[in-house]
């Protein structure tokens, strides 16, 4: 699944990285605990989180993430946007809650598998 598809599924706003949405997502992480994200052990993942600090982007970048979705319509700090631009990580924002966002993505994955 490409990040571009997530934009549609979550009805998300692209805050930065419009040109980076063609990347393939290999795993998902949904967490407000960055320690857990660091312990994920997978590459090329998309992170869904309720946190908004620059550490979110730092963690995603270091742990091998390729994009971040901020849930519940919470915008990240400006510092996070700067860091994301420097590391070429797209940032999305959705008004869906963490649960709704995870459910929408799961449903899309299942319907894709059925095809």
């Amino acid at each position, binding site marked *: 699944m490409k990040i571009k598809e997530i934009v549609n599924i979550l009805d998300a706003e692209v805050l930065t990285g419009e040109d980076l949405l063609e990347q393939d997502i290999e795993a998902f992480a949904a*967490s*407000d*605990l*960055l*320690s*857990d*994200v*660091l*312990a994920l*052990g997978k*590459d090329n993942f998309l992170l869904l*989180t309720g*946190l908004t*600090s*620059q*550490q*979110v982007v*730092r*963690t995603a*970048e*270091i*742990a*091998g993430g390729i994009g971040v979705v901020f849930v519940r319509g919470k915008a990240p*700090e*400006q*510092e996070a*946007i*700067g*860091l994301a*631009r*420097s*590391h070429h990580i797209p940032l999305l924002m959705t008004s869906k809650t963490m649960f709704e966002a995870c459910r929408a993505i799961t449903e899309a994955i299942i319907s894709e598998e059925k095809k």
Partner: protein
Amino acid sequence: MTILHSREKLTLANELIYEIKVKDAMTREVIYFSEEATFREIQLAMKKNRISGVPILDEKKNIIGIVSIDNVITALDQNYVNDKVKDYMTKEVVTIPQNYSLVSAIKKFEQYKFGRLPVTENAHSHKIVGILTMGDILNRLLLNIQTIAENVEKKEDKNLQISEDLLKQAQQKPLRFEVKKADFDNAGRVASIIRNYLQKMNIDKQILRRVSIVCYEAEMNISIHSLGGYISVQIEGNNIIIIAVDYGPGIPDIEEAMKPGFTTASEQIRALGFGAGMGLPNIKKCADYLELESSMETGTILKAVIHLGG
């Protein structure tokens, strides 16, 4: 404006309206007229410049009145549009000194519902040096907010650029990066630099991730738990050696600290999404070799080795 009365944590825009001065937001090229001008002249100038009010100044640029679009409409309506404005203009003009903060300006806009405020040289002067609208304030705020992101981006780009030359030296001698106490915004800097460098050396992605995670967790540990310290990185043949040293206060019980979930981190750290007691166990998981020594007198030394593969 509710924002001014809120006792909640200051938001970014809220902080900025206290920091930025009127003179940094105002328009300096003021379109103004003398009291001898007619409403018709002013109406044409308003249309041409897409403005809805002009100050009336004397020969020394002191403000003596203001003409708004409402005044012009009334003049049209009551057939004195070709008269001089001198007898009709609003003479009690609310102004703001240029060294006041935007918060005072916003309060005045709220209080008087004006579209613009003429800006004076200082609180005791009537000399006009600029004009301020809510649009000017908004532009300035947006610009300042954008600058924050841009500055972080530039700083990070610079960091990553420096890393290449530096890390070439890491093959001869250990490279040392200072890590400051409680400097969470910069924690991860070393990890990013090393990740960026190894990426260009075509190191396997999983190894790349493990190296940068060990670095990041070590940086976080130093800034969260210690008085400060440093990270040293050395590439020795096919191994990368990461040594994290801090100046105390030391880990009382290493065995306990290695247990997943054990933590002494504060609420502030937890709010950032860290301090779950996963740092050391995660370092152990990612490193091929780990050594941890701690003394309550001198501090903690962590040594991690990761094989770069190939």
